[in-house]
């Protein structure tokens, strides 16, 4: 009896699942089209087995569980089709099927144990059910396959047992195969594998993440990080994403790949601060919007302060505010922690910026201070609305070379960034100038010809202003001769280095931490060892670390200064944002806590008295924390302080290697 039932069950499930899958594909294809390249499907296995697993493996237990469950299921399903579907009975195939079922069963047990007391980041509802379904499938498949190896009678007697087994298998098939096509939790396998194949950022799969402990000084792989936002065609009839169907179809596919594992939620600084953002919920809302319906069936944590179940959407109706509140989008700091953590490689930040673009460019509803900053950028080329000619006022006594007076060219163009208008950051810049001079670097500045890089405008969704600034900056930079650009602002660093190439500006740009590390390596800087043995910690700026993979140089610098670095629990690629990126400091969405306060708590936990930073925005945000708190010092300030300027003391000046400075901490330092 089972012999007749099983093929029917399996093929019905496959057929129904395929119908569902076809419908699902139709949903994705409602997005904006791009050329279809089927050969990309071939990339999928490598991306799945290698890149995806790389991320999953950050949680070892979960990785093993997934390998067992997923591997077991794929094998068991394939074999079941062959064995039970086509009736190719044989002890070897049967044995393999049994073995696969057992592996899957073991995995499913682990899943169930995790689901006994699920962590808050996990979604419940259907996902809770999935764990049981996995058991049902593996047990059912195991039992119905036992006769194949002759353990049980080849024909299981009719009646209740057959019914029970059939139901078990049917349950399993319903969840695993039908659910895969019809939007059940198993959808992730189907959508996820296609998403990996058609990912919008193929470069991400060539990337090896540099670890903070890496011995490799400059993270050779960071060149392959794909973190630049996609340029927007300003001549398009509609700018940005208003409705789910305005996303690229690959993005819609990506949303469907979400497994609701909640890793993004766990790392999201806005969520932790009680601001109304939860990356996981956002992606699920995009799925709701794409498929139509309400978010009432969502079974995970919602946006803090916003009730689940009150929003609805469809692929042809606007997302904001029916489906997602605007403040959810404005709470994002674009720190990319969610993207970094996502095992399915979903691009949350791209989606958020796409929707922000519509709000800013078409609806004109950028949060008040953000809109003011954009207006200032349009009128004065800097977000503060200050006279751009005063960009060098702080350096009146430093007598900096203007590059326009150096037609023969310079080695380094120092890009000041908007921090040049901020009194706090001017201290950093002064320190950096001192270091460059001590290192004998041939450098010059643009002066009043420098404009804002366009970072804030772009993250706030104003692509038009960004592109205008980018084009003007590229034109300015192209007029002058220099070998490379050095900047103390990771945002400028990222935008000039990674986002300008799309607009025809390819420049070699270094963050000042990298450049200073280089100077140390070349023996061009000599420092005295810090007389007080101070514990410092280092806060990785998002746009330097996660966006550009520079984790090593700052640490190398601190080591060269003889400072003991106490790493925060969240550092390196998992560093927590200061709350100042992506225009979040301007949109200033209220929450329960402030992100910089939470970050300062991280700092305090290390017991460090000083936190080394490498970004003007981080400096400003962290200094905004009410005292008493650890000191905030930019890397440049720390280096400049320890600097022994050439000619000041000949003896030390000839012993410049950082290694030596490090191994001789007792060396007497001339005051």
């Amino acid at each position: 009896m089972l012999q007749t039932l099983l093929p029917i069950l399996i093929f019905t499930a496959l057929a129904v699942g395929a119908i569902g899958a076809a419908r699902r594909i139709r949903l994705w294809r409602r997005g904006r089209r791009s050329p279809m390249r089927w050969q990309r499907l071939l990339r999928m296995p490598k991306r799945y087995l290698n890149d995806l697993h790389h991320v999953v493996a950050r949680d070892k237990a979960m990785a093993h569980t997934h390998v067992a469950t997923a591997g077991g299921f794929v094998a068991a399903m394939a074999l079941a089709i062959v064995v039970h579907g086509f009736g190719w009975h044989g002890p070897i195939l049967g044995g393999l099927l049994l073995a696969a079922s057992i592996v899957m069963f073991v995995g499913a047990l682990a899943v169930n144990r995790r689901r006994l007391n699920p962590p808050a980041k996990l979604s419940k509802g259907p996902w809770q059910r999935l764990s049981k379904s996995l058991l049902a499938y593996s047990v059912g498949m195991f039992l119905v396959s036992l006769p194949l190896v002759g353990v049980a009678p080849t024909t299981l007697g009719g009646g209740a047992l057959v019914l029970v087994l059939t139901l078990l298998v049917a349950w399993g098939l319903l969840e695993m195969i039908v659910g895969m096509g019809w939007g059940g939790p198993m959808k992730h396998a189907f959508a996820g594998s296609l998403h990996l194949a058609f990912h919008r950022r193929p470069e991400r799969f060539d990337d090896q993440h540099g670890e903070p402990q890496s011995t490799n000084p400059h993270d050779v792989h960071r060149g392959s990080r794909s973190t630049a936002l996609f340029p927007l065609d300003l001549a398009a009839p509609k700018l940005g994403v208003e409705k789910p169907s305005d996303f690229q179809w690959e993005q819609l596919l990506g949303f469907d790949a979400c497994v609701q594992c909640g890793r993004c939620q766990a790392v999201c600084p806005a969520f932790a601060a009680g601001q109304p953002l939860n990356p996981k919920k956002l992606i699920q809302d995009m799925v709701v919007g794409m498929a139509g319906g309400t978010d009432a069936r969502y079974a995970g944590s919602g946006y803090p302060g916003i009730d689940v179940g009150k929003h609805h959407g469809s692929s042809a109706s606007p997302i904001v505010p029916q489906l997602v509140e605007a403040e959810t989008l404005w709470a994002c700091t674009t720190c990319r922690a969610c993207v970094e953590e996502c095992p399915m490689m979903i691009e949350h930040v791209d989606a958020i910026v796409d929707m922000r673009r519509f709000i800013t460019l078409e609806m004109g509803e950028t949060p008040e201070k953000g809109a003011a900053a954009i207006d200032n950028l349009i009128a004065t080329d800097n977000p503060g609305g200050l006279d751009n000619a005063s960009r060098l006022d702080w350096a009146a006594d430093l007598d900096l070379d203007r590059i326009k007076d150096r037609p023969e060219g310079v080695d380094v163009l120092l890009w000041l960034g908007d921090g040049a208008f901020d009194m706090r950051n001017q201290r950093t810049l002064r320190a950096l100038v001192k270091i460059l001079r001590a290192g004998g670097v041939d450098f010059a500045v643009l002066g009043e010809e420098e404009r804002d890089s366009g970072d804030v405008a772009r993250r706030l969704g104003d692509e038009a202003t960004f592109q205008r600034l980018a084009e003007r900056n590229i034109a300015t930079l192209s007029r002058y001769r220099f070998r490379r650009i050095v900047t103390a602002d990771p945002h400028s660093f990222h935008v000039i280095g990674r986002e300008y190439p799309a607009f025809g500006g390819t420049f070699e740009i270094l963050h000042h931490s990298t450049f200073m590390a280089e100077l140390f390596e070349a023996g061009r800087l000599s420092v005295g060892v810090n007389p007080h043995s101070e514990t410092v910690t280092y806060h990785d700026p998002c746009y330097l670390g996660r966006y550009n993979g520079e984790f090593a140089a700052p640490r190398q610098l601190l080591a060269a200064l003889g400072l003991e670095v106490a790493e925060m629990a969240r550092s390196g690629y998992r560093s927590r944002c200061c709350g100042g990126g992506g225009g979040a400091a301007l949109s200033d969405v209220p929450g329960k806590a402030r992100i910089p306060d939470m970050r300062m708590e991280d700092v305090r936990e290390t017991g460090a008295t000083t936190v080394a930073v490498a970004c003007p925005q981080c400096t400003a945000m962290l200094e905004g924390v009410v005292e008493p708190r650890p000191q905030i010092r930019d890397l440049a300030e720390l280096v400049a302080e320890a600097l022994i300027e050439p000619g000041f003391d000949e003896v030390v000046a000839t012993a410049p290697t950082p290694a030596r400075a490090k191994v001789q901490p007792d060396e007497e330092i001339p005051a």
Partner: protein
Amino acid sequence: MSVRRIDPHAERIRRNRLHPRHREFARPAWRWTSAEGVTRINPHALGAIGPNGIKRLDRSGASVEASIAGGGQASTEPARRQITLEVPSGYIMVVPELAEGRLSDHDRDLLGLARQLAGDTDLAVTAVTFLSDVAGLEEAGADRRLDLANLVDAETYDPESRLAALVAAERELVPSHWIFADDFPGGGDLGRRLAARLTSDGVQEARPATRVWQVADGRSLSRAGDRQDIQRDVPKILIALAECADPVSETRHEARPMTLEADNAAIEITAGIVDRGRVAVDPQQIPLAQAPFILSAGRGVADWAGFHHAADVLGASEGASRVAVDDGNMPRARQVGATGTFVAASCYIAVGISGAVQHLQGITRCQRVIAINRDPTCDMVKRADLAIIADGDAVLAAVCQQLGRPTPVPAATEERCHDAA
């Protein structure tokens, strides 16, 4: 020649600095002629405590005299020359603003400008007022005074009837100049109305110079848009900014009242504008940047209900420091400072705000700053014109009490507190 008599009793007291009546007799203490006929100077009575707390010698002795005279308020202004003008050759009309019924500095500047234009000629500087009694027109330089109070209602905004009255004056007196204050909705409004009316009536040279800030050598300089100035021959109508000329200081004029012969010759008025009266403005509705009176709270405030009540009692707009906003006690829109709003209140009361640099940057344009703080060393106290070293909550509560509206029991204020937060 009179014989110099010396009162030996007074001399004794004067010499004895410990005598209870010494100060009384010591005047003028810094210098006197002794019984021997020698000029004596008392160095202790000289000088005054300078701004740095260091005693400064003022050998003129004026400070001593002033302090003994009590307050030094005595006017040292020399007597003014009285100028009378019996038969004017023409008129220069000045329409002062008379905000709150008084001549303002701006009004005096306008009259000064009129005097400058009149020069040595017999043109009569005529103050045109819509109020019956205005003090100080004589010192301000008005030869004549044209009171049009009978033609218009001084209390209501009725530019059309005022314009009609001015047009009547223009027809009768044909003044060579009209001078208005460039203030909206006062003289700036009326002056432009007059100019537009005269232009359409075909009066020559009626196009006014607006925002005039200087008149020299028969040319006027007025500020135009786009960082430009316009220089032109002095036109008939000048709508001038404050400090366009120096006020009259050396002469005194008669401000002789005059009337229009064609009194009540009211030209037909199209009543297009009807004044419906002042609107009570909730101080909390005034944008912070324009608010004239701000009560601002910082970390030192614990009793927020009391704070909101105090703002209500004082009629002040509420402001806050960044920390108070970050802590969620005040909305972000109320944040004062470089990262919030730059304010220009005429009075700014900072309660429990220590005065971070960014905050102080935000209040640089405030005229008067009052700090209430427990910490006498904080920067806000240093910045303040009046600093009260005390607990902010208690002082505010006492203020409410003394103004007759004590802070209600917390239960009653709970709701208001939420509203504001």
